[in-house]
C-alpha cells in the first residue's frame, strides 16, 4: 500500500523573516474563485465611488494682481513658471512650486493684450493698448537694479495679440492688421489683411511653423501662410470666436471658443462642417487650451466655470467652479499634462488638477498597479447604470443648473420644431438642418 496525504511544509508558505514580504501562492482555478462577476462589479462600484471621493481638483490660488487678469502665458522650457498680464498694465511672473510671485513689472500704461515667452524661455514679450511691443528678461532683476525692457518697438497700429513661431525666428502680432516681425528689426517684415475688422487673437501652429490662425471681431477665423502673399482660408461663423487653439499633435486640427456657448473643433482641410461641437457652457466661452497630448481641451467661460472636454467628445468630462471665481479670462494647460491654470476677473490665478482625483507626488509601483486596476474596472463597467451615473454626476451651482435646463429645453424645442416643419411640408422641400454646419455663415 502506498499512501500520500496532503502535507504542506510551512517553510514553503511562510516568510522567513518579518522583513520579507508574505508569500502568496496563487491558483487560478475558476472553481476556487466563485462569483467572479458580482465581485468584480462590486469592486468597480467601489472604485468609481472612491474616484469621486478623492476628486479634489482645486490646489490653490495665486493673488497679488490689483486688477483683473487678462492673459496668461506658460514658459516653454520650465514647468514651474507662468506669466500673467493684468488690465492695469502689470505683468507678474509666478513660481508655481512655491506659489509666489517672482517678478512684477508695470509693463504698459493700459491693459496688457498679450504676453508670450520666447522659445528659450529667457525673455518674454508683451503687447498692450499703448501700441508697443516690449521684450523683458525672465529672471528677476538684481538687487537695486531697475526693471527695464530689453527692447521696445512702437507699432503704427493698435496691437491686440502676439505669438511666437515655435520653429522659425519670427513672431506675429494682430490688431487692425496682422503683422509678421523679426526680433532684429523695428519694422514689421510683412503684413496681412483680410476684411475690415481687427483681430483679437493670433496663434502660430505648433507643428507647421508657417501657419497662423486669427480670430477677428467680424466673427471670422482667418488662416495665413506667412510664406505666401495673402491669407489662405477664411471661415465666418454666426457668432464671434474668442480664442483659437491648435492641436499640438495633429497640425490640421484646431478648436475655437465661441460666443454662442460652444467650442467648435475643425479640421483645417475640411472647413464645411465642424468635426465636433463641444457643448455644456452656459455662457460665452472666452478661452481654451489644448493638453500637451492633444487629447483634451480645457475651456473657460463667462459663466464662471472651467470645463474639460475629452478628445472629440461632445460633452465635458469635468466642470470646475468655486464660489469666488468670477468670469474666466484665460486658461493654460501645464506642459506636464497635470495641471490647469486659469486667470479670472477677480485678480486671482487658480491652479487645478487636470484629472480631479489623480494622486500627486510619487506613486509606488504597487499603488500604481492598484490605481490602474481600478481605472480598468471603471472602464469595463462604465456603461452600467449605477456606475455611469456616479461617474458622470457633478454638483454644479444652481445658476448653472438652471441655465443648463433652459438650454436643454430650448435645444429640444428647436429639434421638435424642425421635425414638425419637415413633417408638415411637402416631402423633400425642407432638408434637415445639420448641426455641425448650421453655424457656419461662409467659407472662403
Amino acid at each position, binding site marked *: *500500500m502506498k*499512501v500520500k496525504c*496532503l502535507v504542506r511544509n510551512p517553510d514553503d508558505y511562510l516568510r522567513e523573516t518579518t522583513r520579507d514580504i508574505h508569500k502568496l501562492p496563487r491558483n487560478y482555478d475558476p472553481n*476556487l474563485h466563485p462569483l467572479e462577476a458580482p465581485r468584480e462589479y*462590486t469592486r468597480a462600484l467601489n472604485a468609481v465611488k472612491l474616484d469621486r471621493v478623492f476628486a479634489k481638483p482645486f490646489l490653490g490660488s495665486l493673488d497679488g494682481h490689483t486688477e483683473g487678469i487678462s492673459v496668461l502665458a506658460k514658459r516653454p522650457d520650465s514647468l514651474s513658471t507662468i506669466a500673467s498680464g493684468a488690465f492695469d498694465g502689470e505683468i507678474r511672473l509666478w513660481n508655481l512650486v512655491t506659489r509666489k510671485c517672482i517678478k512684477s513689472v508695470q509693463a504698459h500704461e493700459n491693459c496688457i493684450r498679450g504676453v508670450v515667452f520666447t522659445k528659450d524661455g529667457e525673455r518674454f514679450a508683451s503687447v498692450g493698448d499703448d501700441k508697443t511691443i516690449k521684450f523683458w528678461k525672465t529672471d528677476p532683476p538684481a538687487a537695486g537694479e531697475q526693471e527695464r525692457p530689453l527692447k521696445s518697438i512702437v507699432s503704427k497700429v493698435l496691437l491686440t495679440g502676439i505669438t511666437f513661431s515655435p520653429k522659425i525666428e519670427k513672431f506675429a502680432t494682430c490688431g487692425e492688421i496682422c503683422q509678421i516681425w523679426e526680433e532684429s528689426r523695428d519694422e514689421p517684415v510683412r503684413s496681412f489683411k483680410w476684411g475690415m475688422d481687427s483681430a483679437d487673437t493670433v496663434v502660430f501652429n505648433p507643428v507647421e511653423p508657417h501657419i497662423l490662425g486669427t480670430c477677428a471681431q467680424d466673427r471670422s477665423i482667418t488662416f495665413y501662410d506667412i510664406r505666401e502673399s495673402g491669407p489662405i482660408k477664411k471661415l465666418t461663423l454666426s457668432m464671434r470666436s474668442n480664442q483659437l487653439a491648435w492641436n499640438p499633435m495633429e497640425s490640421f486640427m484646431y478648436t475655437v471658443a465661441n460666443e454662442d456657448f460652444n467650442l467648435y473643433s475643425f479640421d483645417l482641410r475640411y472647413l464645411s462642417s465642424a468635426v465636433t461641437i463641444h457643448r455644456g457652457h452656459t455662457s460665452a466661452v472666452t478661452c481654451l487650451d489644448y493638453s500637451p497630448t492633444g487629447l483634451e481641451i480645457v475651456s473657460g467661460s463667462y459663466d464662471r466655470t472651467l470645463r474639460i472636454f475629452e478628445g472629440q467628445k461632445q460633452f465635458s468630462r469635468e466642470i470646475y467652479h468655486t464660489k469666488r471665481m468670477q468670469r474666466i479670462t484665460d486658461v493654460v494647460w501645464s506642459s506636464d499634462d497635470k495641471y490647469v491654470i486659469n486667470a479670472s476677473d477677480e485678480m486671482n490665478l487658480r491652479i487645478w488638477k487636470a484629472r480631479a482625483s489623480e494622486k500627486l507626488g510619487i506613486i509606488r509601483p504597487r499603488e500604481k498597479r492598484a490605481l490602474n486596476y481600478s481605472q480598468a474596472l471603471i472602464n469595463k463597467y462604465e456603461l452600467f447604470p449605477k456606475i455611469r451615473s456616479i461617474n458622470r454626476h457633478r454638483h454644479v451651482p444652481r445658476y448653472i443648473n438652471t441655465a443648463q435646463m433652459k438650454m436643454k429645453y430650448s435645444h429640444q424645442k428647436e429639434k421638435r420644431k424642425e421635425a414638425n416643419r419637415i413633417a408638415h411640408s411637402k416631402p423633400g422641400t425642407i432638408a434637415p438642418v445639420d448641426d455641425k454646419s448650421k453655424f457656419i455663415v461662409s467659407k472662403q
Partner: protein
Amino acid sequence: MVNKGKAGKPSSGHKNGRDQRKNPKGKNKFPGMRKERPKPKDDMDVDNEPWKKVPVRKGKPLFNPPPVPKDVLDKYTRGERLPQQEIASFRSKTLKKKALRAEKKIQWAEETTARAEVLLTEESGFLQTDEGEVSKYLTQKQIVANVDITSATKYFNLDLDFGPYRVDYTRNGRHLLIGGRRGHVAAFDWVTKRLHCEINVMEEVKDVQWLHLETMFATAQKNWVHVYDNCGVELHCLKQLQKVLRLTFLPHHFLLVSSSENSQLTWLDVSMGEIIKSTALKKGPLNVMAHNPYNGVVCLGHLNGTVSMWSPNQKKSLVSMLCHKAPVETLAIDSAGKYMATTSVNQELRVWDIRMLDGPLGKYRLRGNPVDTSFSQRGCVALAFNNVVEVYKQWNLGSYKKGAYIVHETLGNVSSLEFCPYEDILGIGTKKGFVSIIVPGAGEPNFDALEANPMQTKSQRREAEVKSLLDKVQPEMIVLEPSKLLEVNVPGLQDRIRAKVEILHAKVPKIEFTPRNKKRGNTARKARVKRIVKQDRKEAAVKELSAIQKKILAESASEEKKKPQASGGALDRFLPKQKR
C-alpha cells in the same frame, strides 16, 4: 481532469509528499527542441506537458510555445468566443479592430492562466493498494502507519460526553468548530490542536457555524441564535432568529442564513447586523439546508421530496424540483456548484446537475438511510449510516457496487460530516465525540492565498477581512446564474414575439386636446379647432400604426415564403410533410 500526471502513479514513496517523478520514457517529446534540454531544477516534471514549459532567455521565449491542450483551456475559459465570420461582417472598421483586439486579449488571458499551472507546487494525495488489497477494508490505523508523521497526527478521536456533535470547518480549513447537542461548544485550530475556547452554553445546541473569520462563530441554540467570539464571549443574541435548526454562511455576501423549526428562512447580514429577508415557507421544519457556493443560492430539502432554491430577492422560490418520492433527508452541494446530492428516507441517493437543473445524473439504492452527506473539493462523496462512514471517490458512484473508497466505523452513531477544505481530512461528528479521518485525495492541493489561506498570519487575516468587506457582494446579486451580470440584456425571442403581437393588436390611442385660450374667437371656433386637431392626430396615429403593422406582416409573410414549395417533381418527396 487536468492534472493527469499529478494524481497518477507515483514512483517513489517519499513521505513528505514532494517526491520526484521520472519521465517514464526518458525521452524529450518536445516538438520544437532538437538538443536534450537540461532537466528543470524545479520539483515539477513538465516533460509530459510541454505546453507548460517555455524556456525564456533575456525576457523573450526561445521559441513559440506549443499550444495548450483544449481540455486545459476549457477549464480557464472566459466564455464563448465571437466567431471570426461575425467579426468580419462588422461594417465599422474601428469596431472590427476593437473586437479582434479584445478577442486576442481574452485568448492571451486564457492561455496565460492555463500555462500558470506550472507554478502549482503541491500534488494531491492518493492511495494505491497492493495486489489483493481492497481500499475499503483498510483501517485508519493501517493508513496512518503508512503516511508521514505530520499526516498521522491528523487522524484523531475526541471522546466527548455532550453529543451528538455538529461540525464546521473554516473556509481555509484551518479551524474547527464542534457543537454538542447538550450544550458543549469548542473552537480550535485542529492542525496544531490549539484550543480557542470551550464553553458549555447550558442549552441545546442544534447547529454551529463559523462566520467570515475564525474570530467569530454562530450557534443555533434552544430558542435563539447566539454569536460568540473565539474566546467564547457572547457577542450577540439574535432573538429574531428563533428555533433555528440549521445555519449556513455565505462568505462573499456576509449573510448568515438560518432555517427554523417553524419554517422560517432568514438571511442576516452580519456586517450590518440587519435582517435582509425573512420568509415563512409553510413547508414544515426546515432541517435540511445547504448553500450553493457558485451563486449563493440557498437550497432546502422538504418533507414532500422537493428541493427548493431561494434567493432573498424573490418572494417565491427560484426553483422547486421534485427530487424524491419520499422526504428529503440530506442535501450536499459540491464546492464548484455543479452537483447536488440528495438522499431520501427511502434509502436512495440521487445526484443532480444544478447548473442545468437537470437529472438525476445518478440514482443509487443505498443499504441504509444516510444521516449526512458531504462533498469534498476534489469530488469525493461521503455518506454516513448509523455508525459507519463511507467515502466514494466521485459523485458518480459507478463503483457503488464494487464498494466504497474508504469505510470507517465510529464508536457512536454519526450525526454530521464535513470534508476539511484544502486537506485530505473528513471530520465526523458523532454521538460520542468527534473523529477526524484521513481520506487521501479528497482536498484541493493548491490553495489561492488571496481567496482562502490555511497559512494565514494575523496581519494577513486582518487585511483579508478589510478586503473582503470592501468586496462584499450585495444580496440583490444572488441569482441562479451570476455571470449573467456581464452579459448584454438581449430581449428573448418570446419577448420579441410578444411585443410584435401587442403591436398587431394595438388600438389607436385616445387623443386628448385642449385648445389654448386665445382671446379672439368664440367657443364654436374653439370646438372646431378641437375637432380638426383631434381628427388630424388620430389619422396620423392610425397611419403610423398601420404602417408598423404592415411592416410586421410583410416580414412574417416573407419568412413564410422562404419555405420550399412543392413543384410537382420527384424531389418533392424530400420536402417536410404538411401538418394536418
